[in-house]
């Protein structure tokens, strides 16, 4: 068994923290960026001892930050009050522009699937209905789009 020598975690934070914050701002907007980075760093620390190699740690931190931004976005969608829906949709709970910018590089089909799943917050059955495909195919399309986003970053 080979022993992986990982750098002290805080050396990574001090080297890359500023660019992760900039990355989070691009994904989620100014208002939520610090929360996303805080969550991302804790996730990274939890996973750190399980890393099997010390290569590409910066890219790995970007991916963890992207995932944290997507999860935070989903959580905020869920927190929107469902009763008493305002006539004009309010956008102050998430930044639609940032989400669209995040998914812009993807093909049409992938973007549509992500919007249905994360912006309209539909479950996979409902996404499948709208796209006229099976639920398994809907899940596959969303997860493959999320994977593509993670692999693209850092841009």
């Amino acid at each position, binding site marked *: 068994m080979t022993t992986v*020598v*990982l*750098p*002290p*975690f*805080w*050396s990574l*934070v001090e080297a890359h*923290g*500023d*660019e*992760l*914050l*900039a990355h989070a701002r691009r994904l989620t907007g100014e208002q939520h960026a*610090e929360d996303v*980075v*805080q969550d991302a*760093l*804790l996730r990274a*620390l*939890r996973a*750190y*001892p399980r890393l099997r190699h010390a290569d590409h740690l910066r890219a790995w931190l970007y991916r963890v930050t992207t995932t944290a931004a997507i999860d935070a976005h989903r959580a905020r969608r869920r927190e929107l009050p469902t009763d008493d829906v305002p006539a004009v949709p309010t956008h102050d709970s998430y930044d639609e522009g940032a989400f669209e910018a995040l998914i812009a590089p993807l093909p049409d089909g992938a973007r549509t699937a992500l919007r249905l799943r994360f912006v309209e917050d539909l479950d996979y059955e409902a996404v499948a209905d709208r796209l006229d495909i099976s639920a398994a195919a809907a899940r596959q399309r969303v997860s493959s789009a999320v994977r593509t986003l993670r692999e693209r970053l850092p841009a």
Partner: protein
Amino acid sequence: MTPLPDSLLEAVASAAVREGLVDAVFTRLRTPIGRLLVVQGENGIVRVGFEEEPEDHVLAEVAGHLGSRIVASDSELALTRDTLEAYFEGEGDPHALPVDLALVAAPFRRAVLEALHDDILAGQVVTYGALAERAGNPRAYRAAATACARNPIPIVVPCHRVLPSSGGIGRYGGGPERKRALLELEGSLPA
């Protein structure tokens, strides 16, 4: 790019400590003998670095023994900071702080540093020979000197209180000027 705010870094470090996610915590302290890097594990302080030692090297050395989940936090090490700050203002003895000699592999060197930490309080001094005797081998004064020269926890494990029997101030890992300053602070600078 904007650096991460200190408040965010402190929040991450405190949450990580609460969750049991860290192997060690470090803090940077300004003192009259320069900036110190203090690294503490679950069982106590494992490493004190002087400012000319590259931080990455010091932290990597600790990571090699305790693990790589190392975070910085002033608030998590508040007691350590307060104790050291008081010491540099002439109050108390950092001897009260727990230490962990995990970075010292050789048993005799470890025994030397344990004896030094436990027995030689501020205001006292000891010779290398007498220290070797306390550690169980009166003839091993050279090994005692090596143990002091490689002490990973200077100041808290007080190798500055060990003097040559031939007189004078002797050597010090952090340089003789620092040794002199610490002994002067403790009122035990030899004439």
